């Protein structure tokens, strides 16, 4: 689970769905996306942490952030490039003919 701790008030403890899971049903494809996305580190590592792993053909991504707005920005940018990497495989992966 992703935990967003709002510093000002201890009572606020948001637990939001910021664990992302994409099932590629292929160890190879999940690994390709993982390798492509792992190169770019989070821009503000002191504010947002991102951990990725590949298990059973699934890409698992876990986000942690100190504030919701950092989580939102980071998550949103990540989903964009994740989608791009996935579409690239769909379009130019196995069986691509010209």
């Amino acid at each position, binding site marked *: 689970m992703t935990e967003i701790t709002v510093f000002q008030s201890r009572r606020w403890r948001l637990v939001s769905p910021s664990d992302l899971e994409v099932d590629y049903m292929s160890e190879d494809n999940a690994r390709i996306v993982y*390798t*492509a996305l792992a*190169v*770019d580190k989070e821009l503000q590592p002191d504010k947002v942490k991102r951990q990725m792993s590949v298990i059973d053909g699934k890409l698992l991504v876990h986000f942690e952030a100190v504030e919701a707005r950092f989580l939102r920005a980071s998550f949103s940018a990540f989903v964009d*490039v994740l989608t791009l*990497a996935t579409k*690239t495989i769909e*379009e130019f992966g196995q069986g691509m*003919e*010209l």
Partner: protein
Amino acid sequence: MGHDLTGSSGNIVVSWERFCEGSGFLLSMGSKWSRFYRKMTALGFEGSANKIGVGVVTLDGTILSNPRHTYITPPGQGFLPRETAQHHLQHVLPLIRSALETAQVSAKDIDCLCYTKGPGMGAPLQVAAIVVRVLSQLWKKPIVAVNHCIAHIEMGRIVTGADDPVVLYVSGGNTQVIAYSEGRYRIFGETIDIAVGNCLDRFARVLMLSNDPSPGYNIEQLAKKGEKFLDLPYVVKGMDVSFSGILSYIEGTAEEKLKNNEFTPADLCYSLQITERAMAHCDAKDVLVVGGVGCNVRLQEMMRTMCSERGGNLFATDDRYCIDNGAMIAYTGLLAYAHGMPTPLEESTFTQRFRTDEVLALWREKEPRNLNGVMKEST
């Protein structure tokens, strides 16, 4: 991945080209030879600013395809990183297909995948980097990271045939005077604040000019109607120039003086002075103008006059090559790859700041000059 001679037929051709180096043999045999053996070929991706382009190029500089798509914002607005990246995300995959189809090549014909590492806007740069990393794994092809400024220079050299010119690189993000010396492209002078193209773009926004096809083009068309010349507060500091003062001044006075001033030439001539000094410094005769603003006809005229006064030539390219494109990245990446400089996938990062003189231009030291002769394509 190294450059081994026992690999694919493409690699064997390179050794053959090297064997023929200086003999002129390839000049006569090139076309016949290529029917039997594939030339080294690269797929290149450019996305550092508001254009996304994909190009297919062979080592001799032949451009097999070079499609691109430009993100055009409404009048009065510039392009922002996130929106520009969204534009690139939408267009990059269809552009790859179009580039491969036009060039009539498929994955197996490609020797390396080249992308713009920087300089440029982060989010747009990332699009090309991600695609290249995925394709590299799918197709088992090496990656080559390319410096955007150097790609402009190499593209300009191969297209015009300029051998060792002083380069004036003028675009929306960069204004540099560059010359090659001892392994690197050295920056002789540059802007200390904003690029000349940025100055023009932002002036176009003040006037609410259209950004289609580009703000600079529309300023140029408007300037042709200008009659009065307005003195602008230009700044030259040593070998460097500054354009932000010009922008502030013109923004402040645009309202009343709008009608009649001819902005473009007054502005551009200062980078020209620096180029002239660099020419004197390097004892060079020729000048190559590259970058988006390099399409400016008035700038080209002024440079031509200056060069002829110094007994040299002006080399300039048209908008197919001087505006950002994928082929320039492919060609420059291929030069680096042919000289054994691929980029490991885990190091295929992008960076907003990437200076021209950080790159070791290995290919300039032992350039197969006769190859240049084959590829030279007049514009």
